[in-house]
């Protein structure tokens, strides 16, 4: 466990574990979220660190990290874009929105055969993911940039949206 976490984060982690008094294992997802917020992704050491912290086997944590698409095994771009691909947004132009974002953010998408899922721009400034329903179907197409949510995104809006994330 060569991972060094700042004291503040360790305190927060310990506090979160107390929210699951019956079983420490329940804290696995919350801890992974906290670590990804801090590091930007889940590195190999994080998996063994979380396992040791919660008295689990590393495989128990690896099982989770690979199941949930929100956990990244490699860093995203400086800013991460999520565009919704599901039916209502697709009907409202979700596929086109994805293409427009890629064009303006300088991202080339190559299908890698496994359906996953994160594509980065060359300069590392942006990454993009085509995700499933983000639950605002009546106001599509929708997207998220980092933790910010945008509805009814017009294709023309994309450049100025990206401007806000430099």
């Amino acid at each position, binding site marked *: 466990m060569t991972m060094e976490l700042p004291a503040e984060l360790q305190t927060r982690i310990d506090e979160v574990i107390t929210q699951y008094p019956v079983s420490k294992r329940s804290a696995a997802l919350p801890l992974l979220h906290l670590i990804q917020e801090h590091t930007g992704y889940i590195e190999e050491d994080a998996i063994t660190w979380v396992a040791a912290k919660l008295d689990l086997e590393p495989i128990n944590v690896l099982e989770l990290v690979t199941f949930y698409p929100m956990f990244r095994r490699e860093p995203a771009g400086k800013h991460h874009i999520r565009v919704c691909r599901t039916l209502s947004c697709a*009907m409202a132009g979700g596929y086109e929105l994805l293409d427009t974002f890629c064009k303006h953010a300088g991202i080339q998408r190559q*299908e890698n055969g496994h359906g996953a899922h994160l594509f980065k721009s060359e300069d590392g400034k942006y990454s993009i993911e085509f995700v499933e329903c983000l639950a605002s179907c009546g106001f599509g197409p929708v997207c998220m940039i980092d933790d910010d949510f945008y509805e009814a995104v017009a294709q023309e809006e994309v450049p100025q949206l990206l401007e806000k994330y430099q």
Partner: protein
Amino acid sequence: MASTTRTAHPREKRIIFKNIDRPGWTNDIDCYLQDGGYEELKKAFAMKPQEIVNEVRASGLRGRGGAGFPCGVKWGFIRPGGAKPVYLICNADESEPGTFKDRYIIHQDPHQLVEGMIISCYAVNARLAYIYIRGEFPEGAKILERALAEAREHGFLGKNILGTGFDLEIYVFRGAGAYICGEETGLIESMEGKRPYPRIKPPYFPAVLGLYLCPTIVNNVETLCNVKYIVRIGGAEYAKIGKPNNTGTRVLCVSGDVQRPGYYEFEVGGLTMGELIYDICGGLKPGRTLKAVIPGGSSAKVLSVKDRYKIKSKQADGTMVETEIGLEDVPLDFDALAAAGSMAGSGGVIVMDDTREMVWALNNINEFYAHESCGQCTPCREGSLWMKKITERMLHGGGVERDTDTLKSVADNIAGRTICAFGEACAWPTQSFIDKFRDEFVATAGTKGNGNGSTNH
């Protein structure tokens, strides 16, 4: 957040969504208290827990997450005085395509949920509760944590709430991008820190063997908000709203090819599909006609404008009369939509006009289910991806003649054979799309070739 200001339609009956988009409304506790918030909580504490359960049962409230299971009956499964602790979990994992209501309650009126939840915990004697919120609502999670902290500060949570001797803690648990966590036993497995594989029932009924194998109630956000309202007016009064067996209001979420998509709260069965589409949502786009509607989230079977449904209705003199109606005349309640061969589900209404290709639409839906299948059991794991591969190949021109029948057969081999309802959820779209729009599938798969347009997945 919403970049457009939206106002309620005059025909709506806004109870749960009363404060959504309300001018001047903010999501902090002060605003909520000024508006009379947490009064129902005090009223609830003056009642006995069993009384509250009785009121909820009398109200006829059905779950608003998608299954429509009577809430009072679910609560009644918890035997009071059991040895194990009881848990209550709010299912805020809103992920059913077409559904977008819980998002707004969480972001704009979180205290309504918190209050409804505290009342519900008191009713079933849960001392530790969680809100399972989907990972893609990061701001929502922060808003809820702040709301819970405010509630704690005001003595509505924690030890000896309002001097009643009732202790309760509620924590927020964030998901991380898995639709299957909306399934109540998948949710419970996720909360236990395991892969969210739904449990087999029997024996793992949550009311008996739920979280940590203790009795657990899992309720949708909207359902819990309704509990507060039931405490306010009583179960019998609540039952007068809507129709028998289909009581209360529900938030309908309309998306797709209408002029004014959005959320609308109505009495259950208070309007027909046609009224929703044309009167409330402004009809279809200019020059377009209605083709199909998915009435309850993408898992619900699609209804075609060409359908004719035989609906039985009781007349005033007690006789039963059978009428034949079309899609536009179907009342939007649980029973009528079930009788029409679909379901009210999550209330997500997706409207498709005559420009939409059904193979394309089904392929989009199939891809969703193939992504979201947890992979635990054979039919869904293998079948969901297979169905997606077939429709994708058909779309790329590689369809062969027997694809339509194969697709239908694959779906038939999934539904009813799986551990959880995801099997039905991924099979019903395929079954119903082919059932209602067979010609399009046959035409798309017209070649007699051997399927060379295969995909690389």
